[in-house]
């Protein structure tokens, strides 16, 4: 640690350099002043002399400042003016001039001449433009004023020899020039030395900084130790269980190096321990997700870590929102590029933006991958459908007109598009209707699955911590509530998807037995024989009379007006579970009304259990505890207080969960909304920028492509990625994590040189 001498040396050199620079500057300035003054006197003095004789007429052309007073001065007898010369910075010139004019009430004559070379400011080292000035004046009081002004403007004054004495001036010039050369060499030498010193320092400074930081950290930590016994220090701390042996051996090694007879001890402190900090070993892949979770809150010690689930669901939900093959591929390759440069980026110092992208590189790859996957499911590539496997719909004519109906090439269930949605939907007039219905249902399904998983994690936490009350009276009612209403909704969605509504609806339609539709393959059952007349029969043989209701015509007997033959409006049916219990208008299966009644009862029962059971059992426990211990009044007061707190806490928890299930489910609809926004934006850009210009001419197409590429990059690849990212993040932080995540842990911040040095160099 002998940097001390080194530092003082550099400081000395610096001070010396400052002094030298100042001296040098003075020499330079003086030289300039002398030269300028000489030139001035050589060229202007004759004119002045003339002006003296001619009543100052010549001065009128000389200077505006001087022109005011030359009348008064014209007939002055003594024309020997005193003068002050000096140097002032060019920036200040105008103000300086004005100041002089005001202070002397115009009774002086100022001339400026710029110095061509800028002069280094000795203190800051910056280059400053300066100029020489010369002021002529008469009285002594003006002289003191001028000197003050000069000082105020940091203008150096230089006294001149008598200008009439030309040899003296010349002598001074040459002398000064000689000194100038000398001081210049000294200055250069000094600069050279300083440069070499700095060059050497530059090689080592960082290394030394690291050493110093390391020592500092060591002593900081030693400050936390306590000296119980003389010569020994005691420290306490948290160790990762796996590293316990390493710690022990490294302590022993350090002691054996010392050849010391004094033994060292590394022991577990007897319990109870304070709250342990939370530490997760992360790898390159999970690091980013763990940081997500930590940003929200550090997991409580030993609590289920949401980062693990986030690692899988985050990119997936992003993909659901971003779903597009083309844009997804860009993102995917951007991520791959980051992976490709992984090692180089690890070593380099990156700016904040790039460093963020670098730490999220695996996330970006995954997000890109799932965006492509979801794009294939939506069959959406830059808003266009890809006909990869051959569409299962066909138009009757080769060049279909607007409004023509496409026919399925196979019957229901026989052949479907192998993966994703049929590209034909992209040209259908009900495209939006179809995609919205599909994506909305998809988002509800994903949302409820994720929230249900979060609720299950709460149960797992309760089991792990052995909290019986939490498990039986918090987790189970929650599951019951979620299952009876929300998982049931998912079941209904799947059920509606898997029922052949074509056949069911046909079965409740009156057909003419001699018509073309009779005997169609759309009907799953066998066609009955019809002996009705006029109004025809339904496929199962019911004879229509023209006034029969849907329930009469439907062969299924599920009740309600639909009777099972009418595809239900899911939203209405779900709302009616609560609003009109025991009554299902358009059922999908037999006994739906009864089952929904039971489910509603389960949900209704689970709420009071959730609200009341845990506080009740806790108060009972406390009461028995109190009778055992016979605590004094203070303790009872405290318990009363805490019981009230428990009730309030539980009420909040219940309300949050029950309302949260509803509002969070709605919140997951953002999956649909963002996906819709993405595909609509892509459609608009494609149609307006590309399609509309393709038909004009090549130049319009050229411009159009530019617009298309620009908007696609700026809006979809930048803004939309960010937007989907933030919404996916929100879904995890709010909708998923509030089901189980306590997030009140303390982060494990080990005593680590590596961390300290990384922080310092960042």
């Amino acid at each position, binding site marked *: 640690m002998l*940097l001390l001498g*080194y*530092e003082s040396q*550099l400081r000395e*050199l610096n001070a010396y350099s400052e002094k030298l620079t100042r001296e040098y500057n003075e020499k330079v300035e003086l030289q300039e002043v002398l030269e300028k003054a000489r030139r001035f006197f050589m060229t202007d003095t004759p004119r002045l002399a003339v002006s003296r004789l001619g009543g100052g007429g010549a001065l009128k052309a000389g200077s505006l400042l001087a022109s005011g007073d030359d009348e008064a001065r014209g007939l002055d007898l003594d024309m020997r003016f005193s003068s002050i010369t000096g140097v002032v910075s060019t920036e200040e010139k105008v103000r300086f001039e004005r100041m002089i004019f005001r202070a002397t009430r115009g009774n002086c004559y100022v001339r400026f001449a710029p110095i061509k070379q800028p002069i280094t400011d000795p203190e800051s*080292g910056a280059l400053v433009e300066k100029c020489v000035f010369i002021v002529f004046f008469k009285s002594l009081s003006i002289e003191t004023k001028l000197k003050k002004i000069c000082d105020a403007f940091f203008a150096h004054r230089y006294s001149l020899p008598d200008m009439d004495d030309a040899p003296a001036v010349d002598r001074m010039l040459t002398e000064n020039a000689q000194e100038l050369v000398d001081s210049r060499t000294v200055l250069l030498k000094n600069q050279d*030395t*300083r440069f070499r010193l*700095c*060059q050497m320092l*530059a090689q080592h*400074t*960082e*290394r*030394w900084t*690291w*050493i*110093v*930081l*390391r*020592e*500092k950290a*060591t002593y*900081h*930590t*030693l*400050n*936390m*130790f*306590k*000296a119980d016994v003389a010569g*020994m220090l*005691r420290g*306490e*701390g*948290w*160790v*990762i*269980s796996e590293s316990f042996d*390493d*710690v022990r051996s490294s302590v022993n090694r*350090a*002691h054996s*190096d*010392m050849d010391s007879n004094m033994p*060292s001890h*590394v*022991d*577990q*402190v007897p319990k109870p*321990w304070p709250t*342990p900090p939370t*530490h997760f070993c992360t790898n390159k892949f999970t690091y980013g997700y763990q940081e997500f979770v930590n940003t929200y809150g550090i997991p409580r010690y030993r609590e289920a870590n949401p980062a693990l689930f986030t690692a899988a669901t985050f990119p997936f939900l992003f993909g659901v929102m971003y779903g597009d093959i083309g844009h997804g591929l860009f993102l995917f390759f951007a991520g791959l590029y980051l992976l490709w440069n992984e090692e180089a980026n690890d070593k380099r110092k990156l700016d904040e933006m790039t460093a963020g992208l670098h730490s999220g590189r695996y996330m970006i790859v995954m997000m890109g991958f799932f965006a492509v996957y979801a794009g294939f499911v939506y069959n959406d590539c830059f808003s266009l459908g890809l006909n990869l496997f051959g569409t299962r719909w066909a138009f009757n004519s080769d060049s279909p007109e607007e409004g023509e109906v496409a026919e399925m090439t196979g019957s229901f269930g026989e052949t479907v598009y192998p993966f994703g949605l049929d590209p034909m939907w992209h040209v259908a007039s009900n495209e939006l209707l179809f995609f919205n219905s599909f994506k909305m249902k998809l988002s509800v399904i994903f949302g409820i699955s994720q929230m249900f998983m979060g609720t299950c994690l709460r149960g797992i936490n309760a089991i792990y911590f052995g909290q019986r009350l939490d498990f039986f009276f918090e987790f189970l009612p929650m599951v019951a509530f979620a299952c009876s209403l929300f998982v049931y909704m998912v079941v209904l969605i799947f059920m509606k998807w898997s029922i052949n509504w074509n056949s069911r609806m046909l079965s409740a339609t009156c057909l003419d037995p001699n018509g073309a539709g009779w005997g169609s393959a759309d009907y799953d059952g066998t066609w009955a024989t019809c002996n009705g007349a006029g109004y025809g029969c339904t496929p199962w043989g019911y004879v229509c009379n023209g006034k029969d209701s849907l329930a009469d015509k439907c062969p299924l007997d599920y009740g309600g007006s639909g009777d099972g033959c009418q595809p239900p409006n899911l939203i209405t049916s779900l709302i009616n579970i609560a609003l009109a219990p025991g009554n299902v208008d358009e059922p999908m299966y037999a006994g739906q009304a009864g089952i929904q009644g039971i489910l509603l009862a389960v949900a209704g029962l689970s709420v009071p259990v959730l609200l009341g059971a845990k506080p009740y059992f806790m108060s009972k426990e406390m009461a028995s505890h109190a009778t055992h211990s016979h605590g004094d009044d203070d303790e009872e007061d405290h318990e009363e207080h805490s019981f009230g707190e428990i009730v309030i806490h539980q009420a909040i928890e219940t309300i949050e969960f029950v309302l949260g299930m509803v509002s969070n489910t709605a919140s997951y609809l953002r999956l649909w909304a963002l996906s819709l926004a993405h595909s609509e934006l892509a459609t608009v850009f494609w149609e307006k920028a590309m399609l509309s210009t393709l038909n004009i001419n090549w130049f319009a197409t050229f411009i159009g492509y530019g617009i298309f590429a620009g908007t696609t990059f700026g809006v979809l690849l930048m803004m939309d990625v960010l937007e989907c990212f933030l919404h996916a993040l929100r879904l995890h932080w709010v909708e998923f994590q509030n089901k189980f995540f306590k997030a009140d842990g303390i982060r*494990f911040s*080990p*005593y*680590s*040189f*590596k961390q300290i*040095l990384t922080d310092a160099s960042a």
Partner: protein
Amino acid sequence: MEYISLIVNEDAAHDTLADLGKLSAIQFTDLNPDLTPFQRRYVSFVRRCDELERKLRFFGNECDNFGLNLETAGDIENFLESNVSILSGRTGSGLSAGGGGKGTSGTQLLENLEVELEGKN
């Protein structure tokens, strides 16, 4: 996580902690929370380190003025590994090796340079 207590010899404390710092597996709790930073045992050392840090920052600024980039000291992990030798070099063999080469310890290099520079001025 395990909560441990660590009792070390005062003389060996520094080396022990230098080792533990490389391990990055332990988080010490402050056993003297009632003491202000200035009342602590190793205050003078910390202050010296602060002083040195300030000087190094000054060096950095000076180098900036000359437009010199600070050379990186390489990888942090390598640095932590290799530094054992410098520490032991300082406590052990001292001033045996001469010259301003890279092999010598940092402090020694400093001394040499100091002598050199003084000779020049």
